[in-house]
């Protein structure tokens, strides 16, 4: 029987970890989440010498503290799941900073193999690394690889198997200097005596206690008197260290750790030639230039937006045609009845609803992978961070919000580029406020019906601006009140520009797209069927005297959705909405553009779109409507619950019903409040 070896892939962001992972596992990948958190977990298998190597891609981290979710996930995986081997991917062209993480794995005393990636880049930059010496200094195998070209894979796998079988060749302990060592050894002994290390290396726990690591602190405090005693001792030790160094123990320890690393670097690294022509720096002096930086950024964003929606929409049109064909074909061949209605309107409609997003999503992720893999993403964040920081968000949130103008579903998915889960959650919550493409038909219908052609455009622009304003405002509120806490450090590497590889980009695009279909897709489908049921049941008794248009109107008002419209009318009255509008809004949950066709049904017009003159006429004739009500309705449509697809995506991305319910709840409340203020305010001003 083949023996499975679990290999954790660790390393700094931008160290080429993902490229190596793709190279090692090829298409045999599985993307999921770490249990209970939104951090992406990628796994993949590779057969080597009769064994199955199971690779787990850990989140890219610079360190293993308890401060960031990604680092906690990475270190808990190593501590709790105890992988047989940890492969630490090290960027050879940026050796010192990358080895800092390696030093932590040495401290952790886990079986490590260092994969020295981008040796070609390092050599081109005139850096020669004595691999053998480095391996001796760290006491672990060091394997030079070039992940982009797949060079050195066999050597790496051999080393992995070797370490899995025989452990590390040499034990190396990082010496933290006499003052610190005394405390470390003392705490280590105490931990061992009290047997409180929980199977972890006691020395590692001791160092973490001196660093005042919150996770280990809490863990020990929960362990009764013995644990509390050790914490008390650690506190005394930290106070003592502070009097010696004039800085706290955390700094002293990081200093010594870096000392070990830079010592190793000095020995193992020889710079053969100095300062080459660094084209990456040249590019940056233009791309992040004071004058050109913003125009270039907006230019690229425009290009991305155009690509995602201009290029995506024809494809989307093709898909829509396919589903329309399927719809008519099935209607013809299936016997009339409940089953046909379910299949044709529920399932085909639902699946279609999922897949129509796919072209946009794939193109979006294509663009995002190119930005990320080339290194532009962090420049983009650098250029616009000032704006986003004002509202407590990260520069990268901007990209999500921009995508939100197209469609909220990919916009929510795009938040995956954000490293901090707090900023990610806030971005997810506010992104639906960016007015998506599906809301535009509603605006066109209403603005076109109630405002002069010259004003209509301005009114629609006003709605878009209101969305942006509310999004920024809510982000600000959420980051200061809903999710307060220490600011997430922005401190971000600007990696050298690299040409994205075709393979990497395609894998990236495909796996994200597939993840959407698989995860969000199933939820969207389920919700679409529920919506279909609510809008078409119970079925009214057939009445042959009615026209099909009138029949549709009867079916709708007889349905649960129609009844809900009646029940909710008192709530919506203060906004100037009657039950017809409320019904339309409810139907709009399926997808916001459906509001238009539902209004068509409500006015017994049969099929109708935003340009249809009949519908505009019907709206104008209805005494419920006035320009003020129309404007209020546009505002309400802008803000209220995102469509079921977005809700499903939010649920899939946050992995939490609580946050999903919150997103639905707050948007509804906000929509009601803002609409109330506008409608009642407008009436007071005599506009109604």
């Amino acid at each position, binding site marked *: 029987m083949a023996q499975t070896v679990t290999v954790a892939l660790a390393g700094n962001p931008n160290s080429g970890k993902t490229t190596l992972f793709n190279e090692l596992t090829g298409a045999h990948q599985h993307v999921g989440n770490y249990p209970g958190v939104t951090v992406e977990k990628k796994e993949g298998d590779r057969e080597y010498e009769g064994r199955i190597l199971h690779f787990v891609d850990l989140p890219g981290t*610079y*360190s293993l*503290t308890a*401060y*960031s979710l990604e680092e906690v996930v990475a270190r808990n995986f190593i501590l709790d799941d105890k992988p047989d081997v940890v492969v630490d991917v090290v960027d050879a062209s*940026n*050796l*010192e*900073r990358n080895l*800092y993480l390696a030093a932590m794995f040495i401290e952790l005393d886990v079986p490590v193999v260092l994969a020295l990636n981008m040796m070609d880049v390092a050599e081109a930059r005139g850096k020669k690394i*004595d691999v053998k*010496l480095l391996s001796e200094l760290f006491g672990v195998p060091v394997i030079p690889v070039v992940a982009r070209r797949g060079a050195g894979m066999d050597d790496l796998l051999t080393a992995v198997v070797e370490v899995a079988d025989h452990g590390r060749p040499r034990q190396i302990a990082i010496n933290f200097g006499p003052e610190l060592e005394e405390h470390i050894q003392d705490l280590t002994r105490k931990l061992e005596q009290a047997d409180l290390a929980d199977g972890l290396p006691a020395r590692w726990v001791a160092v973490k206690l001196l660093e005042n690591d919150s996770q280990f602190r809490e863990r020990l405090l929960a362990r009764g008197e013995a644990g509390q005693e050790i914490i008390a001792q650690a506190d005394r030790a930290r106070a003592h260290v502070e009097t010696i160094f004039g*800085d706290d123990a*955390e*700094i002293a320890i*990081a*200093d010594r750790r*870096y*000392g070990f690393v*830079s010592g190793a*670097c*000095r*020995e193992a*690294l020889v*710079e053969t030639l*100095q*300062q080459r022509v660094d084209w990456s*720096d040249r590019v*940056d*002096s*233009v791309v*992040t*230039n*004071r*004058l050109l*930086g*913003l125009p270039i950024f907006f230019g690229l964003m425009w290009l991305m937006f155009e690509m995602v929606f201009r290029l995506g929409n024809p494809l989307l049109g093709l898909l829509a045609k396919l589903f329309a064909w399927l719809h008519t074909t099935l209607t013809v061949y299936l016997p009339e009845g409940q089953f046909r209605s379910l299949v044709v309107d529920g399932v085909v409609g639902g699946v279609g609803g999922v897949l129509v997003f796919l072209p946009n999503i794939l193109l979006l992720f294509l663009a995002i992978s190119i930005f990320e893999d080339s290194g532009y993403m*962090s420049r983009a*964040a*650098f*250029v*616009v*961070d*000032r*704006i986003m*920081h004002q509202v407590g968000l990260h520069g990268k949130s901007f990209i999500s919000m921009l995508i939100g103008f197209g469609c909220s579903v990919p916009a929510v998915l795009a938040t995956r580029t954000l490293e901090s889960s707090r900023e990610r959650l806030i971005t997810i919550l506010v992104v639906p406020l960016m007015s998506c493409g599906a809301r535009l038909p509603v605006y066109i219908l209403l603005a076109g019906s109630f405002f002069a052609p010259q004003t209509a455009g301005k009114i629609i622009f006003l709605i878009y601006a209101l969305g942006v304003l509310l999004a920024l405002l809510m982000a600000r509120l959420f980051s200061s009140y809903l999710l307060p806490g*220490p*600011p*997430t*450090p*922005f*401190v*971000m*590497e*600007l*990696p*050298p520009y690299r040409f994205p590889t075709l393979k990497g980009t395609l894998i990236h695009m495909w796996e994200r797209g597939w993840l959407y279909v698989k995860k969000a897709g199933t939820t969207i489908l389920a919700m679409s069927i529920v919506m279909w049921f609510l809008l078409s049941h119970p079925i009214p008794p057939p009445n042959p005297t009615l026209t099909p248009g009138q029949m549709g109107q009867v079916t709708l008002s007889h349905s649960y959705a129609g009844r809900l419209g009646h029940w909710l009318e008192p709530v919506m009255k203060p906004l100037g909405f009657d039950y017809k509008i409320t019904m339309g809004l409810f139907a709009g949950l399926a997808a916001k553009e459906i509001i238009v066709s539902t209004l068509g049904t409500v006015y017994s017009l049969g099929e109708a779109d935003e340009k249809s003159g009949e519908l505009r006429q019907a709206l104008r004739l209805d005494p419920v409507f006035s320009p003020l009500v129309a404007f209020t309705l546009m505002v309400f449509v802008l803000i209220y619950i995102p469509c079921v697809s977005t809700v499903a995506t939010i649920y899939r991305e946050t992995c939490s019903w609580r946050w999903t319910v919150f997103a639905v709840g707050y948007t509804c409340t906000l929509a009601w409040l803002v609409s109330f203020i506008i409608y009642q305010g407008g009436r007071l001003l005599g506009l109604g």
Partner: protein
Amino acid sequence: MPDLSAAELSATMEDYLEAIYALEQSQQVARVRDIAQHLQVKMPSVSGALKALKARDLVNHEAYGYVTLTPQGRRLALQVYRRHQVMVGFMQRIMRIPSEQAEPEACRLEHALSAEVLNRLLALTEFMQTAPQVEQAWLQYLEEYETTEDACELPVEQDVNLPGPEIVTMDRVEPGTVARIVRVCGRGPVRRRLLDMGLRSGVLVRIVRFAPLGDPIEIKVMDYHLSLRREEAANLQVEVVEAASVHNDNGAAGKGHEGRGRNGRHHRGRGIAPDDC
């Protein structure tokens, strides 16, 4: 590692063993007279010492005959001899002390130091010998350190007319400046992230540019580029090593003289030039 605790010999006795061993090596046998001459002591002292050593079964010695080491005595003598050689080696090769001075100093030191310290010294010397690259690097750094003009003195105390390096927070430094981090302040995740990214005291950084809207800023440290917000940069106290030569908008300032100090050589101590590693 020599096992010194077992025998618990006094320093003098160790010297005798060492002398006998040396004589055995050079002249096949050791006589009392030779020993006295070698150690520059009187013959009766030698006799007394030999008696004590014989009592411990470390030497064979019949009255007025040759002195030879017992197997155990030879083992101990070898240890002492090797230790001596290593001490001399340490002084000559690592501390750069001339051999005529190193010999007697080593003799005195090897007895004065505790076994523990001696063991560590031995380990260090042996380590250096087995890793020639380390030794070479060590010597190179030492030389560099010693030849750097401002090796130890603080310029502040040197010349009152020249103001000492001004310490400012990094958010207030112009692009193009090379600065050395003096202190990392702040707390919590931000400071930890700064430390983890290699921003620690002694390190040289180069402020590359400000973002188009003035915030965040881009710096170069340890040969990589990092962006951080001004409020984060305010946690870093730096001293300016090289002021921005011409104030020009980013770009042009980003070339050439990366991370070189005042005297154009690598920085000493913990100072690590951005392109060092």
